[in-house]
């Protein structure tokens, strides 16, 4: 059959065979996850209990249905979690019949692999990298699915779908493999591993619209509720045992919700009345600051994320 240019009929046909933007993103993510499972031997899905990893777990179910997830989920537990997140994590794992592995930053500290930061409210954010890498080593995982999105942060905007990590788990942003069409090169030497980011092309708004369209359940902290918080240099931190009030600070009750789910010690809330998905989508669409603006861990320097990623962070 020789090549023929498109006729009008064929152009019209392409219209009736149109996939919505979200369905295109979904199909791409499913393709990426299947590709990683086909190319690697010991995959793991990094699960934080946040909305992105919930969407990722949902996409994984779709990718491998009717089989169960052909890999475990790994939670790197800082010990500074919102109780609601852990409760939800266990609920979801049970519901979808997944296997969950939990490794704790506290164990890494106890084993002398990591040292707690100094100061009144040490963040364990950076220490997660140590725990993550020792879990990867312990289980000999050769690929880890991460829920990072390119729209989150400018160093992440330069990330590949299939991201190579050397034997020290380092990311070398200046020497990334070119990624062409949808041909993903997961070849590696022993001891190296890959991070695969199926949600690379999703934005925060896409995630929320998808959660709404697919009617996914979420931890309650994403929705508006009353909570005692302290305003620390513009970051609204929830009252918890991980926060020590500084001089002049005090807790006050506010109507808030969280846009991201991280540690209680560094994840800031936003004042919001949005108590359902439609309200949240409207709020996200109109938002004027990024979701990571409320993360104290990203405010440390301009290259904070790049530096953490190079060391092997999520």
């Amino acid at each position, binding site marked *: 059959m020789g090549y023929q240019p498109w006729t009008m009929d064929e152009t019209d046909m392409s219209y009736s065979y149109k996939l919505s933007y979200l369905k295109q993103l979904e199909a791409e993510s499913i393709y990426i996850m299947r590709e990683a499972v086909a190319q690697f031997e010991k995959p793991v899905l990094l699960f934080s209990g946040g909305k992105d990893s919930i969407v990722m777990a949902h996409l994984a179910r779709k990718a491998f*249905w009717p089989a169960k997830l052909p890999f475990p989920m790994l939670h790197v537990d800082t010990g500074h979690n919102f109780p609601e997140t852990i409760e939800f994590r266990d609920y979801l794992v049970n519901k979808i019949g997944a296997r969950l592995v939990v490794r704790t930053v506290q164990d890494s500290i106890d084993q002398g692999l990591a040292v707690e930061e100094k100061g009144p409210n040490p963040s364990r954010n950076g220490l997660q990298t140590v725990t993550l890498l020792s879990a990867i080593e312990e289980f000999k995982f050769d690929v880890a699915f991460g829920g990072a999105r390119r729209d989150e942060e400018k160093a992440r905007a330069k990330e590949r779908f299939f991201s190579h990590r050397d034997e020290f788990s380092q990311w070398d942003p200046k020497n990334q493999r070119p990624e062409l069409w949808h041909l993903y090169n997961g070849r590696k030497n022993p001891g190296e591993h890959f991070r695969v980011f199926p949600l*690379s092309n999703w934005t925060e708004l896409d995630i929320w619209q998808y959660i709404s369209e697919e009617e996914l359940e979420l931890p309650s902290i994403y929705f508006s509720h009353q909570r005692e918080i302290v305003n620390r240099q513009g970051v609204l931190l929830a009252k918890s045992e991980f926060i020590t009030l500084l001089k002049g600070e005090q807790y006050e009750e506010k109507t808030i919700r969280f846009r991201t789910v991280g540690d209680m010690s560094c994840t800031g809330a936003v004042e919001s009345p949005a108590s359902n998905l439609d309200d949240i989508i409207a709020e996200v669409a109109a938002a004027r600051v990024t979701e990571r*603006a409320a993360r104290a861990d990203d405010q440390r320097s301009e290259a904070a994320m790049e530096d953490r990623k190079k060391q092997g962070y999520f």
Partner: protein
Amino acid sequence: MEIKEQKREADLLRFITCGSVDDGKSTLIGRLLYDTKTIFEDQLQNIERTSQQRGEEYVNLALLTDGLRAEREQGITIDVAYRYFATPNRKFIMADTPGHIQYTRNMVTGASTANLAIVLVDARKGVIEQTCRHTFITSLLKIDHVILCVNKMDLVGFSEEVFNKIKTDFETFISRLDIADVSYIPVSALQGDNIVNRSESMPWYEGPTLLYTLENVHLGSDLNFVDARFPVQYVSRPQTTEYHDFRGYAGRVEGGVFKPGDEVMILPSGFTSTINSIETFDGPLAEAFPPMSVTITLADEIDISRGDMIVKPNNQPQASQDVELMICWMNEKPLVKGRKYIIRHTTREAKCLVKEIRYKMNINTLHKIEDDLSIGLNDIARIAIRTTVPLFYDEYRRNSATGSLILVDEFTNETLAAGIIL
């Protein structure tokens, strides 16, 4: 412009921006994001702070896209950065591809998934070698739509004459290339002229703004809905009580339309069967088309594995171990004739031998170079390979998914080249 309501049936345009180092590309992107209200306040405050520290007169929008430390320090873009923005009818994925010559491989990377290319030139410099290189790659990778943005019009007094001269030069260059649709827009990214808002300084220009053009480009014929192609990605055998005998072939439809009841042929075995069902988590489908990810079950038990392709018996792809390619070489180590490389094509992996280097392209003159056949970083060449197993392929121009491959180093595992099947 306020983006409150994103329509859920919105379509998607993937485009790349390319230009040379100082054409103001990052500024143009920053302007697009800024004027579509995609930039957030905290991002703006960050770059305002950095601009002030550096003593710059205006907010340096380039700082938004230069995500890596080395890029900010050197003021150049090293790697492809992906950006996202939306208008009510369309979502955009923009690959910002560096113009810096040593990173041209990244432009090919960005171009391989794009439907449209913005080629940027500096109004003071006009069409230069980089412009030709980028435009040639655009045409090689079959990007059907090109927008030539003549930037820094403010620095040439918004002169219509300068714009027309550049337009004529570009028209002459592309007359030898195969590009379906070209638009020309005079802009000042720094001041925002003709990016989102119409320019008051160039009343002589009556065409649309850049954003209007991006929003209204017709996307219809990018995918192939004619030739049924389903490379098997993963064989699904759940072996659970409920799905004890389930055997499905997971993959993405890379061409044509598949329906239950269709007679299909499996390559390379040549066995035929009938599609029993097209399965998804959300239920069985009446038909599957590109770019859907589905699982196909067949009426007969046939031995099928990853890398096989499900097609229709009356419309088969070409099958051969001898393949002619245009390649873009992406590694410092040069191509070695007679060496074996790994290839990845659809879901297939094989080895190949580089049999012949036919010619190298001089992409400034578009002449074929036949007396110097050394192929190094950024070179574009035509080669002939022989593969260890037959490939099932279509001409790249007919189907970019079944017509593309990559060469991989069997020792270092690096991706060495992008290949376009002729």
